[in-house]
């Protein structure tokens, strides 16, 4: 991966009728980068992809590809290919005909096309499928053919619109790894749209988290996971606990917070992080896997102790999700803890008293949502 910019969009706005879909979205993708646009449905990620591909034109803002302004170019004049969510394979052509389509349009010489078809099929592990009819393929195979068709023309940028959405879980996991492997081998940039945060985490170099037509945060998966900037990102990535808190006067380099008007905690600030003014209300987040649950008094050193009762628990196989009731004033606001399956033995424990332990280090302060 180089630092050279391949795609630059922004600040792009787009409305369908009265409804704004994108509000000043800016994004750059480097050469060879795997960039994921992540967000719930209706957040604008697919519209962004369609603007990059040329199927939609932005109301304002430009799209630059490899240094050239392509905003007003039709899709067929952009060096970009798309893997569509519903495959969009041509049913009147066989597999080879589908893969050859783009290369024929690009006037690639026939011997070269004939050479590249088996090559593309081998890359998606479908060698020997040249003469198969599209209608005879399974969903997973169709998706591989769609992928082969898009990469055979060697575009500088590959767009993928929730390509694994229609596949079952096992196949999806397999394809995630294969896509990542393929991305490394091919060397061209991928822009990948998904609403599945786990998928985004698994594959991406960087993730752009979309919400309501805006990008809330762009960063490496670890960055987004460890240091979410807004409560939306914190909640969307891994379902963090988000509570409201009031800033109290405190020591230098630390934030003294009153969470939900009940629990006081002294949170160390990161270097460079500014302390919100005392009296202001902020949001704080904590990851479920950072919340420890104990049944007897054996708190780790320095931990904040919350007396709680168990409201619910879900067995997940490799782990267990425990919902804790810890607020006297707001018993419906639950704290979610994620415990390793080995550490937590399931028993009928609804209403059982427990102790939740939180390290102040693990509490992070979030910006207001955009």
């Amino acid at each position: 991966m180089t630092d050279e910019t391949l795609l630059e969009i922004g600040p792009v706005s787009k409305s369908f009728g009265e409804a704004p879909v994108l509000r000043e979205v800016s994004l750059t993708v480097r050469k060879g980068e795997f960039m994921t646009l992540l967000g719930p449905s209706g957040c604008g990620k697919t519209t962004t992809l369609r603007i990059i591909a040329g199927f939609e034109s932005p109301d304002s803002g430009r799209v630059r590809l490899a240094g050239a302004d392509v905003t007003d170019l039709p899709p067929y004049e952009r060096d970009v290919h798309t893997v569509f969510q519903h495959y969009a394979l041509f049913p009147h052509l066989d597999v080879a005909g589908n893969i050859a389509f783009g290369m024929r349009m690009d006037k690639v010489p026939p011997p070269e096309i004939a050479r590249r078809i088996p090559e593309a099929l081998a890359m998606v592990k479908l060698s020997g499928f040249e003469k198969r009819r599209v209608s005879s393929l399974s969903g997973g195979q169709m998706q591989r053919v769609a992928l082969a068709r898009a990469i055979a023309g060697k575009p500088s940028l590959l767009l993928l619109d929730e390509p694994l959405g229609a596949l079952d879980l096992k196949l999806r996991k397999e394809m995630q790894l294969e896509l990542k492997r393929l991305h490394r081998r091919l060397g061209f940039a991928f822009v990948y749209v998904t609403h599945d945060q786990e998928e985004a985490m698994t594959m991406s170099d960087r993730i752009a988290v979309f919400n309501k037509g805006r990008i809330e945060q762009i960063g490496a998966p670890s960055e987004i996971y460890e240091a979410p900037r807004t409560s939306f990102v914190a909640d969307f990535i891994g379902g963090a606990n988000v509570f409201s808190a009031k800033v109290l006067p405190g020591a230098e380099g630390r934030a003294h917070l009153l969470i939900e008007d009940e629990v006081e905690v002294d949170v160390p600030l990161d270097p460079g992080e500014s302390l919100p003014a005392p009296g202001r209300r902020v949001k704080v987040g904590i990851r479920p896997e950072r919340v420890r649950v104990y049944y007897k008094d054996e708190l780790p050193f320095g931990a904040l102790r919350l007396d709680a009762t168990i409201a619910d628990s879900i067995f997940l196989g490799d782990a267990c999700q425990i919902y804790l009731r810890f607020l006297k004033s707001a018993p419906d606001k639950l704290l979610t803890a994620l415990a390793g399956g080995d550490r937590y033995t399931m028993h009928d424990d609804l209403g059982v008293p427990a102790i939740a332990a939180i390290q102040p280090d693990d509490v992070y302060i979030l910006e207001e949502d955009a």
Partner: protein
Amino acid sequence: MRKGRGLKLYCAALYAFLYAPLAVMTVFSFNRAHRNVVWLGFSLKWYGVLFHDAEMMRAALTTLELAVSASAISGALGLLAAYALVRHKPFPGRGVYATLLDVPLMIPEVALGVGLLSFLVRMGYELNFGALACAHALICLPYAVGAVRARLQSSGGERLEEAAMDLGADEWTAFRKVTLPLAMPAVVSGALLAFTISFGDFVTSFFLSGIGVTTLPVKIYSMMKFGVTPEINALSVLLLAATFVLLGVNALFASNPGESSVRA
């Protein structure tokens, strides 16, 4: 068990109701007698008479040419109209335009015939083969549009055209390489339907047939003035047979979407 038998009887009666007249007509076309009343034995002579009737042959040729022209015109126009209806961005009144294309199906053909006749006469057009072909195309158009429209709606063509454009095809190429091949079976099927409709049309042909342009149905009608002869029976059986053949071909097209393999 009794219930089952009742249902079978009902079905038998229904199909008899539908097909008995045709069966009787077919049987009597092989009758040696000059009248349809008594059966005097099997004979093909009426078919012979038919094929040696020069006027009859000319009418058959006219009917055929007319059906070919009407199906070609309505097939081509139907494809374009259906494409526009399915693909055009929604605009106020789009539904009205779509309905207006179907309305000729519901208009009594007599009214249509009268309208066409007075229009052509007023505009000073000659009632010739061309005028009749256009009139037939008009009657057939809704069928052609309907067949192609259903196909375009179900084949997800817009997505496929987008995919083609994504892969470097301009609008016209995408239409030619993707939409057209996918719509073709429906175009052919619509054209075949148009063919049978034009082939059997009486009312419009009757109103608009000028001098020297006589179609088979019109010819049959003029012969009927002298009573139903076995020759008419024979002719009707041939028309019936032709229709069944066309329906068969149509069914073949409908079941096979015409996917063609492409050499790499």
